[in-house]
């Protein structure tokens, strides 16, 4: 069964504390929407200005690894949702497994990304190297600049998310996850946002020019 939520100052009612936490997190996410949105905007302009060169560069992106990562991340969103809802219901054991699965899937995402980066570098797909295969092709150069920048920024966000999810595991270890289910809820919101960003990136990076 669920236990009474732990309240912090200045809140006297669980519902008010929850509303404040969710509101605060969404306020942060609104700034994140603008942050990532500016880069998607950059993408749109670059693609519009040289669509052929852009697609030429994008065809070199590793579709298989990008798709595997999409699957990993959307699955991790499901496991973390299960963990959060289980914590709220007081199902601590189910919650623990959901958190562990999310950590494993998130780490697997970063590992696959690392393999992909290694392959990209082996093929000189980095705009500033001399052997870059698209020297002089504006669209392709912009695509690969965007690819490196946005995937690294996303990976940083995901790493922060992993830290937050690991904290949930620690809360479970010390036995306070169930009364702190609101922390699980806001952590989950952040994780889903990082997932949505990747869902947007997948077609923009891997399905262009196919």
């Amino acid at each position: 069964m669920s236990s009474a939520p732990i309240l912090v100052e200045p809140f006297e009612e669980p519902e008010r504390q929850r509303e404040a936490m969710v509101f605060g997190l969404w306020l942060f996410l609104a700034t994140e929407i603008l942050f990532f949105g500016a880069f998607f905007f950059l993408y749109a302009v670059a693609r519009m200005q040289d669509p052929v060169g852009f697609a030429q560069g994008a065809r070199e992106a590793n579709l298989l690894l990008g798709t595997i990562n999409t699957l990993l991340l959307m699955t991790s969103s499901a496991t973390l949702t299960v963990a959060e809802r289980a914590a709220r219901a007081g199902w601590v054991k189910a919650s623990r497994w959901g958190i562990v699965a999310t950590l494993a899937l998130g780490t697997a995402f970063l590992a696959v990304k690392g393999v992909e980066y290694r392959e990209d570098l082996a093929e000189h797909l980095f705009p500033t190297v001399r052997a870059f295969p698209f020297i002089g092709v504006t669209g392709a150069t912009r695509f690969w600049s965007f690819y490196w920048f946005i995937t690294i920024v996303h990976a940083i966000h995901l790493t922060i998310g992993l830290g937050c999810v690991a904290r949930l595991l620690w809360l479970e270890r010390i036995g306070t996850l169930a009364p702190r289910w609101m922390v699980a809820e806001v952590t989950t919101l952040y994780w889903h946002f990082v997932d949505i960003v990747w869902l947007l990136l997948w077609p923009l990076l891997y399905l262009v020019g196919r």
Partner: protein
Amino acid sequence: MSAPRDILLGPLTIWAGLFLLGAASLAYALVPGLPLKPVAALTIVVIQASLVLAGFMRLGRASALVRMTALIGIVWLSFLFLLTFADLWTR
């Protein structure tokens, strides 16, 4: 109190929807000669994002204040896109 259906079945259903939409997006992109591929990909991704927002993040059940906060980032971003592309496309 959350029922087992809400804890397990709900997230699994959303996950299945995301997976099927992703598969549809991939299939459409890989079949040669199909029209409007970027439009199809973006339409599917908007549906996927909506599924995550409504199903996983439960934005539909959130208070008006939270929904407005979520919307405001998208509104300001749409202004950025609208104003810039209005300029670029009318030059």
